[in-house]
């Protein structure tokens, strides 16, 4: 999993239970590895582009560093982007995280 993907997963995971957070990250990592190569390649490319964009915004002071809530707001904006692949990126990452986190919460144990 790329650095920005890890950051996105962390921002989208809502539970404070560290073991569930780690399990969600591991699940997303495993899923991304298991994806069809062309989809994985596309998501990786977007992670680099969007991650770079976020880093530049942080350097300019327009996106607070180390603030998951700020990144989550940014992801919400991207989810409504006019650019299809950007929307798909957010939806895919959100689906993985939300599905995993809530399935694990339902089990009550990891």
């Amino acid at each position, binding site marked *: 999993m790329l650095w920005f993907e890890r950051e996105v997963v962390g921002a989208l995971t*809502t539970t404070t239970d560290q073991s569930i957070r780690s399990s969600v990250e591991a*699940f997303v990592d*495993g*899923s991304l590895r*298991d*994806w*069809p*190569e*062309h*989809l994985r390649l596309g998501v990786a490319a977007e992670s680099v582009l969007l991650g770079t964009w976020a880093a530049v915004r942080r350097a300019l002071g327009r996106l607070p560093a180390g603030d998951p809530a700020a990144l989550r707001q940014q992801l*919400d904006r991207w*989810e*409504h982007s*006019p650019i*299809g692949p950007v*929307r*798909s990126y957010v*939806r*895919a990452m*959100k*689906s*993985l995280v*939300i*599905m*995993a*986190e*809530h*399935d*694990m*919460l*339902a089990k009550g144990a990891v």
Partner: protein
Amino acid sequence: MGDLTTEVLVIGSGAGGAVTAAALAEAGRTVTVVEEGPWVDPDEHEPFSLAEMVAKYRHRGAGAALGNPPIAYAEGRCVGGSTEINSGLYHRLPEHLAQEWRTTYGIDEFSPEVLDAYADRVESQLSVARLPGAPPPSSAVLERGATKLGWRNVEFARVFSYDEAGRGTKQTMSRTMLPRARAAGATILPDCRVVDLVTRGDRVVAARCRRTHPGGGVERLTIHADHVFVCCGAVHTPALLQRSGIRRNVGNGLKMHPTIKVAARFPHPVDHGDVPMHRVTEFSPFIAIGGSASRRGQVAMALADTGQPIDEAMADWENISTYYAAIRSEGSGRVVAVPGLRSPVVTYSLTEADLSRLARGLVHLGELLLAAGAIELHPSVTGGRVVRRLDELGTWWDQVTRSRANLMTVHLTSSLRMGEDRRRTGTDSFGRVWGFRNLRVNDASLLPDAPGVNPQAAIMAIATRNCDHFLADA
């Protein structure tokens, strides 16, 4: 590197492959089944759980047909294929489709009577039954809403057997046809991926495979066979043929049932362990309304499709279940095996009429759920309005657009159609690939169109028919 010789090689162990293996092994043929995925004890994981997705789904359920919009899809990848992960709903091929397909594609011996006879045989080999007793609340919702609106609805039979206490066991291929095949002498090789087929003139002479052993080692295996049946499903059957240099009408015309969802909140708890067995058929054959798997993870994912915060609704998640409207689509797609890539690229183009039909399906689904007593509806539309009253449903008409609709499917068909019209088909009327004497396809790829209902019954009946033809012919 190993070598194996068999009379009949069946590639894939889902609804098509398992039926083929059982029919041919029981007819005395020497059969070897290879399956790319692992053997997983059918009782090992809870249905529709995350653990099951990891163990039994291809790409952990994350397939996607590229297009505008992209459409997510899920397939099984384990011994038994998608029969291990689906809801087990069973519906014979509608009579009008058999007649339409026979005429349009020139399919021999494809009358409703012939198909019904094969369906009878399949049903005698499986347990196809309705739920004993009252339906669970999530299913009763569909019946109640439809009855209030005066809409046709039906409880579908499922490929389930029930014990005296009413506990159901899904009759997956790993519990039914594959044990039959094995009892008749068939060999089943899990974790064995066929890389390509070796052809010589008009014959396939071998399959080149890579078999993964439990310790992680990979063995190259060549399987020599007199006859080869490819049964890998509508995505991977054409991909394997393309990798083997066979491309004529292969991978074109992919069809599916694009599906749009609603997470519905009720003032009372609904069950989450099973998939509703009622379907609303009022708008058939173009729109089908039913219920989806609704474990906590799936409910959360469905709620999140609106792009709005889900915490408040999730606090009440035990009162929420997910439902869908699925359409018969005018659009079509392609499967393309790209050299160097393990997974094929799948595309699908929805037409404007499809989008309109999805919007209509979503609105009807909303009407139904409100009539059934739902108090809040969350559509799988980014930015879609959360609806609480009938007069709010109208907003959904304009919200189902290419950029906002979140669509998925679990039914993929028609990537290698059968029939005697060689301009439009990849195989003859019985699945034999044009240009080859001993290569056959026997799975969902053969269906000329998506049938508007769960295709498992049609796949199994057609596979049985094709096996009879093979046995009479070979």
